[in-house]
């Protein structure tokens, strides 16, 4: 009997500690170091949560697409798992970005939802598209076919993201508070330090959660393999119907 070392959990404690330290520092910097914004007041502090969440969400979706391409080229199940995890956590972070965006809209313009805000509308459309990822996987039983079709989806959706941003931005006037321009020049130095710390902390949180999810799925697959090897039954309920990838345990 052989079991493999859980490579997905490698350096997980280190990432978890780094995430806790950087996020704590980011909260401290955002609330006690960065100045109160003149126009929006204290409510602008949500910028340090909302924008990093939005950026990391997009990063997650792009990585989902990249690992989708890798899976289509290699057929390695670990690339499917990485693509799945990046998109799965991306959707969760996207919900966070939408909720914080709504709170920011309420504080800035007195309304929970503003159709003239192209970034928020783009995120809603992207969210609607990526929420079909789980039902799509769930509706395909064969694991190899499920992984292949999910990879095609990940690539199509990854390309869709910039096209969608262009279309929505062309269609709506720009009213989002531009506290942070593309070059970052419009952000005062104290705010910029707090923002970049929050961005790194959120990115570390995303990586930590992704590694934890992959490690957890791998451990569960190892346990199921051990149970099968001693003649027991798998603890996976209705294993033929599930959205998550099958993790290969060699």
């Amino acid at each position: 009997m052989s079991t493999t070392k859980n490579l997905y959990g490698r350096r997980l404690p280190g990432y978890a500690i780094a995430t806790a330290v950087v996020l704590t520092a980011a909260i401290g910097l955002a609330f006690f170091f960065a100045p109160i914004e003149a126009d929006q007041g204290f409510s602008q502090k949500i910028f340090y949560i909302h924008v990093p969440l939005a950026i990391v969400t997009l990063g997650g979706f792009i990585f989902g697409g990249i690992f989708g391409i890798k899976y289509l080229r290699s057929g390695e199940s670990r690339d499917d798992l990485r693509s799945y995890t990046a998109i799965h956590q991306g959707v969760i972070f996207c919900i966070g970005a939408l909720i914080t965006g709504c709170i920011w809209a309420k504080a800035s313009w007195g309304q929970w939802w503003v159709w003239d805000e192209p970034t928020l509308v783009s995120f809603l459309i992207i969210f609607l598209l990526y929420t079909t990822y789980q039902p799509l996987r769930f509706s395909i039983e064969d694991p190899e076919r499920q992984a292949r079709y999910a990879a095609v989806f990940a690539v199509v959706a990854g390309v869709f993201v910039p096209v969608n941003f262009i279309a929505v931005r062309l269609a709506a006037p720009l009213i989002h508070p531009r506290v942070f321009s593309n070059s970052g020049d419009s952000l005062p130095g104290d705010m910029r330090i707090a923002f970049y710390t929050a961005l790194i902390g959120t990115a570390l949180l995303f990586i930590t959660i992704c590694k934890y999810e992959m490690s957890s799925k791998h451990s569960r697959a190892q346990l199921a393999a051990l149970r099968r090897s001693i003649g027991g039954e798998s603890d996976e309920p209705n294993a033929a119907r599930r959205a998550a990838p099958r993790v290969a345990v060699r």
Partner: protein
Amino acid sequence: MSTARPPSTLSAARTVLYKELTLERRAPQTLTAMALFCASAFVIFHFALARNEVEGALAAGVLWVTLTLAALLGIGRSFVADREEGGLDGFLLAPAPRISLLFAKAAALLIFLLIIGFFAALLFSVMLLGPTPDGAQWASLALLILLADLGIALVGTLVAGIAIQTRARDLITSILALPLLIPLLIAVTKASEPLLSVGGGTLAWRWLALLGLYDLIFGLLAYALFDYLIED
């Protein structure tokens, strides 16, 4: 003994397209359903909006929402007969390039969408549209229908190729196609708005450019990825 050469991509696509059109001619299902859906939708919009005539942004919205939802019917039917009657297996056994199936299916869907698009535009102008477009505006609208239908046909064939292997085929087709078509709908409704307004207007080129970009990107994507959808 002579060895038969495998058909070229174009030749195989032409054969499959001919099969699709012959099937629809002998037993009209998709076109009839789409046309009836459009007529019913205009009646529903008349009562739901409580208006005898619409114009401008509202007219563009009514026309393109109707055409998009009608297109979903065509997309949903695209691979059904091949899957249920074994046509897909027969195609995979043939020595034809697999990408020819994409070309044939997208071309068949485009032809259906164009027929329905022009039919629905004429019906809309009779039933609901307030202003009467002139010749130039009709020509602009025809160009928009062509570009939008090309995008819908490409995305639709890709989505239909994904959905056909799933258990919840109809659900997956709708929830996958609609968000993917939103950028196209933004461009085509914005472009149609001045053409359907009182006093008329001209076509904005930036929306045409966006439609062209959308068609190009999703055409290339479909070309690159379609093989993976019919591997087995």
